[in-house]
């Protein structure tokens, strides 16, 4: 089957498609969130050692995973943008950065508020925490670089280079931080030695992860629509859009 990718890679065709896809993913995300929250807060039992506080896991782990995953996706689009000089890939990368930063921030936030009851502190220089913090800095760096460059075409390329360099570095950072931490001392709280996670909790976490994932897709698509409109505002097809004609 021959799909004409270039057809869909044109902002003019992609704009309406993105709108339809975004709506679909948003509905899916809403449904999964409802299911996930129900499992997490109603079905799952209270934890023997941590009490109710452990329920943060249903937000914490999905957002932490998404923070890392989105960076990979962003790097993928950046590579396409540099390799094939496609405008749309750069716009996709641009639209993902704020969502990724938000996910990293949420993971940090929920983690910190989880740490208070369980470890007695908001923050410890634990490997995962530290590498998530640095990941947040990388996202913010990409966003800051984008804001500092006036010409969008130049910003696309510069951000793509930065994202790819960061993509090489993210695993290195992850392992270095992990290693650094264990060199000095044993982990203050070992998560792996905790009793095997109950199936119901795992289900809840997975459902929430998908909810989170779909929500990210929906938001990214909406954002890319906005970016397309802003960048192509000189083009004829934008002027012909019903929403634009009305104003």
């Amino acid at each position, binding site marked *: 089957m021959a799909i004409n990718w270039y057809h869909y890679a044109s902002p003019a065709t992609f704009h309406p498609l993105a709108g339809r896809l975004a709506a679909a993913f948003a509905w899916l995300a809403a449904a999964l969130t409802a299911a996930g929250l129900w499992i997490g807060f109603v079905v799952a039992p209270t934890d023997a050692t941590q009490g109710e506080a452990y329920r943060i896991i249903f937000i914490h782990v999905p957002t932490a995973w998404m923070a890392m995953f989105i960076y990979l996706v962003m790097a993928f689009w950046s590579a396409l943008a540099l390799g094939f000089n496609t405008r749309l890939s750069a716009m996709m990368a641009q639209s993902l950065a704020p969502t990724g930063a938000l996910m990293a921030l949420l993971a940090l936030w929920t983690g910190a508020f989880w740490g208070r009851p369980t470890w007695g502190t908001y923050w410890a220089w634990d490997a995962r925490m530290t590498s998530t913090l*640095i990941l947040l*800095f990388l996202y913010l*760096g990409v966003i800051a670089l984008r804001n500092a460059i006036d010409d969008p075409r*130049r910003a696309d*390329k*510069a951000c793509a*280079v*930065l994202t790819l360099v960061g993509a090489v570095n993210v695993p290195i950072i992850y392992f*270095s931080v992990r*290693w650094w931490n264990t060199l000095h001392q044993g982990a203050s709280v070992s998560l792996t030695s905790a009793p095997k996670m109950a199936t119901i909790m795992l289900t809840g976490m997975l459902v929430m992860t998908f909810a989170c994932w779909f929500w990210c897709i929906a938001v990214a698509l909406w954002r890319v629509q906005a970016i397309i409109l802003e960048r192509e505002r000189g083009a004829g097809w934008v002027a012909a859009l019903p929403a634009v004609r009305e104003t």
Partner: protein
Amino acid sequence: MGARDSDDHDGGGTDAFAWALRRDLAIALRTRSELAVQLLFYAIVVTLFPLATTPERNLLSTMGPGVLWVAALLAALLSLPRMFALDQADGSLEQMALSPWPLPAIVSGKIAAHWLVTGLPVVLLSPIAALQYGLDGTAIAVLVAGLALGTPVLSLIGAIGAALTLGVRGGGSLLALLVLPLYVPVLIFGAGAVDAVRGGLAVDANLSLLGAGLIVAALGAPFAAAAAVRIALD
């Protein structure tokens, strides 16, 4: 010859490297005061910490490796904005990008010069600074070895950041923001090596990781920086 692609080059990589290295060193030596300023900055930052924290020997020697590494990193950072900006301002950068020589080789030469001017002095000064923090002989040796392997990585990664922020609003601080997170592994392995030897552990793992990082950075960074330079000229 069929050299149709923008990334297809004429060869002459060694010439290009030597040209850029020689030129940038010549310029740096004519403006000797800059070298001195670089060293003094390092010395001052290293001196500030005991003042701000505590003069206690034990604590100082624990903090020492970390502080010396952070100071090296900040010294590198401070000199990065000038790496390409002056060449862009006077038009040399255009001429480099239009040279038949491969741009990544030219950029490598500039990076090497940058390290010789900003990194090497820090490496050479660090034993004296380490004495201030009460580090002993082996620890100092590991510190120097780590800095010798790590500071070139700082110049290499820094070159990418410097090229990306060329002519961009808020240059210096933005550059710091982009580059510092990428410096983290160097910092951890470098300072970690000294900590390891002070704790009686083996240091080869840390140093080999730094060495591996140096090789990866040396192979990749000039290409990324050259790409960023071209983007900046566009």
